[in-house]
């Protein structure tokens, strides 16, 4: 299965924000490989969380590991049965390991939107 994490410029560090993270790390548990992909939502004016959530769906990921997530993205992910976990610490590999060992807890608190305003 595929699990996704928002990552920073350093690419092995988790990004504090989901919707506007510069990259996503897509890890395939079967092959053990992690691919870094550009986040198409990182520079959009508004609706970033939604676009990022759509990206997660289109990657056919089954889980997202993130320090925070907005209510809109959460709604999309939950409707598509993607599980959202709270990251521990900033390391990408550590979080992937923790996830595989079932040590991560589910993210339950979601924040309000930052939509672009007209």
């Amino acid at each position, binding site marked *: 299965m595929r699990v996704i994490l928002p990552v920073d410029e350093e690419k092995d560090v988790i990004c*504090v924000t989901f919707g506007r993270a510069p990259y996503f790390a897509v890890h395939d548990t079967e092959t053990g490989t992690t691919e870094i992909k550009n986040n198409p939502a990182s520079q959009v004016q508004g609706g970033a969380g939604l676009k990022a959530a759509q990206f997660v769906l289109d990657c056919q990921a089954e889980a997202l590991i993130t320090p925070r997530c907005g209510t809109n993205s959460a709604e999309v992910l939950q409707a598509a049965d993607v599980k959202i976990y709270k990251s521990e610490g900033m390391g990408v590999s550590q979080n992937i390991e923790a996830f595989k060992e079932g040590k991560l807890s589910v993210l339950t*608190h979601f*924040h309000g*939107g*930052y939509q*672009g305003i007209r």
Partner: protein
Amino acid sequence: MKRLLVLSGKGGTGKTTVSSSFIEFAQARAIADCDVDAPNLHLITKMEVQPEVSDFLGAEKAEIDPEKCVGCGQCAEHCRFGAVKSCGEVYQILDYACEGCGICEYVCPRSAVTMKEDVAGRQELYKGETVFSTAALKMGRGNSGKLVTAVKLAMLKAAPETDLAVIDGSPGIGCPVIASMSGMDLVLIVAEPSVSGKNDLERLIKTAESFQMKMGVCVNKWDTSPEKTKEIEEWCDEQGIPFMGRIPYDKEVSKAVNAGKSVAAVDCPARTALLQIYKNVRNELKI
């Protein structure tokens, strides 16, 4: 590093006066002005270095090539935002009204309309001993979560080792305010003791509540209405929101501001009150 956000529901309550005095008291080395519709902090926080300036790109906006336009008016007919104006025989986009929906580009039979990157403003990052992040928007461009987030992140990325970062937020209750709240350790709301001030405070708190933000309230120019101040204090008590203090109306404040100084530099009753609130805030933040 603890992050303090200063907000006010209503404009003109003294938000920037409060944040600039805190910056002085703390000798803060990480500062951000997220009030990008009307940035004011730079008038007090004088930086000596030149800033790193970058264009802030807003949403794409439509542009019509007058050479290709045949004046059919399809764009104007479909635009729901009144952003297409006829100009002689061709049509033109009013960039301050354009929302960037892309319908005009879609319906144009001659490909005369293209969606282009709009430079909505510029971001400035001063990196001296203190890091100061701010931005200025072009006219007609609204503030956005994107820009507020960018200004905040620029500061957080460049911030030196320091115990307190002060962020001056925008007035109102809209999305820029919501965007500024994420990742903050405490949101201090500056309220005005008046019917409108209390009304706006309530609307702001309601907006912030769902984000589980740690909040505090202080009242500025409290002696212009002791009754309203008391009402606000009582309301905060009912809501379980810590009341951080009150600042008296003091002529020295606008004198200082007009002279480009923070009120913290002037010995006066307002300064004394602000210092106490600052200490209360540090207590709340456990620093």
